[in-house]
């Protein structure tokens, strides 16, 4: 299950490209077996974004699972017992005990995954090339197109600066606002 950590973006994207293939892909066939009409994965703009997202999620599953698992395993049994004595059950136990105790891991993943998503290039390059109709043309992919397809290095550099500022602002928000709610022991 942790194998996706070793699968590169290029390898994963090529496999998913085959799965999404309208003529040969298994995905739509499997869906049809349960009576669902599979969409044109890489051709409809909104669906294309979902396709790229699915691929990205799959690629980062390994890291996410490992970190969360470690976080969950780090919760001492005593806390659960104490809570049980206090009458906590099920959903309450989850929201009041599990989530706060695992919040450092969640926060770590939030930061790391945001960075990974903002950096996503390979999946877009191999699945959709920024299309359809620029639906999957992220800032990073746009830098690539403007610099290396349209040869407008000046404009692409400007986009790079915007990317930097964006990430900076996001990081500050994450550390200032969200980290406040993280429960450290």
């Amino acid at each position, binding site marked *: *299950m*942790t*194998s996706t*950590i*070793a*699968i*590169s*973006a*290029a*390898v994963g994207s*090529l*496999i*998913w*490209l*085959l*799965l999404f*293939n309208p003529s*040969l*892909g*298994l995905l739509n*066939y499997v869906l049809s077996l349960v009576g669902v009409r599979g969409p044109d994965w890489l051709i409809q703009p909104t669906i294309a974004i979902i396709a790229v997202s699915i691929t990205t999620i*799959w690629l980062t599953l*390994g*890291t996410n699972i*490992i*970190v969360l*698992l*470690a*976080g*969950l*395993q*780090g919760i001492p*049994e005593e806390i*659960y017992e104490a809570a049980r004595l206090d009458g906590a059950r099920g959903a309450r136990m989850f929201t009041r005990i599990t989530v706060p105790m695992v919040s*450092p*891991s969640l926060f*770590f*993943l939030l930061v790391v995954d945001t*960075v990974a998503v*903002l*950096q996503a*290039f*390979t999946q877009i*390059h191999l699945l959709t090339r920024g299309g359809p109709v620029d639906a999957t043309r992220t800032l*990073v992919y746009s*830098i*690539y197109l403007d*610099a*290396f397809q349209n040869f407008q*290095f000046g404009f*692409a*550099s400007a986009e*790079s600066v915007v*990317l*930097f500022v964006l*990430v*900076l602002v996001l*990081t500050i928000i994450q550390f200032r606002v969200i980290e406040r709610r*993280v429960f*450290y022991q």
Partner: protein
Amino acid sequence: MGAVALQRRRPLPIRTLGSYVLLAVVAVLVAFPLLLALSYSFMSEFDIATFPPPVLPAHPSLDNYGKVLATIPIGRYLLNSFIVSTAVVIGQLLTASLAAYAFSFLVFRGRQVLFFLFLSTLMIPWEATIIPNYMTIRSLGWLDTYQGLAVPFMATAFGTFLLRQAFMQIPRELWDAARIDGSTTFRFLREVVIPLSRPALGTVAIYGFLSTYNQYFWPLLITNETLMRTTQVGIAQLRFEESLRWGLVMAGVIMVAVPTLALLVLGQRQLIRGLTAGAVKG
């Protein structure tokens, strides 16, 4: 895998079963694409083009693997990736351990400032720097070279940070004792710090190797020569070159993924420990 379930003293059977089923489903969903790629790599175009789309090959054969070897110099790609990844790992270990050592044990003016500077580079997304990096490498004449592929990644703030955390765990007394004994700074590094920080060093090495091996964007930009390409760019190229022969592409994909999977199997413990060290404690 049922670690959480085992921690409860009297688990309800339904709960345990439920979580096992869930875990099994997730495991299948995650592993499925990979297994499918493996399956397809043994199929001929004829098999693949049948409807309904097949899951297992009707006439499994190793043909595709042979064709991959004949179509692209995959051996060379693997060699290139290995050389570059190893170079990067060595560079990273050197720069990160020296920097981390300085930050943990040595006192000098501007130490705080420099450390924050290091940390702040973590916030710069690498993609925002490709254009200037590309221009630099190009003007150095390093396109299509191993240096061009490796040098930009030989210093790592992430690694420095990780190692600094590990070095800080070393008891201060050892350092004081060494100073009293008249040991040089280098000696202390070599004989005490490094041996005691093996796990952290291992993490930096594995992480560095994997991320360099898996790189796509940078090699795409700076390699034109077929023989200088790395594995990731090589198989993506295969996809374009043989856009109608999916079995071939999947065979290439498997061949390229095998080294990283092997590394994962060997270094799994190490990697997990490294990843969780920063996460759980915050």
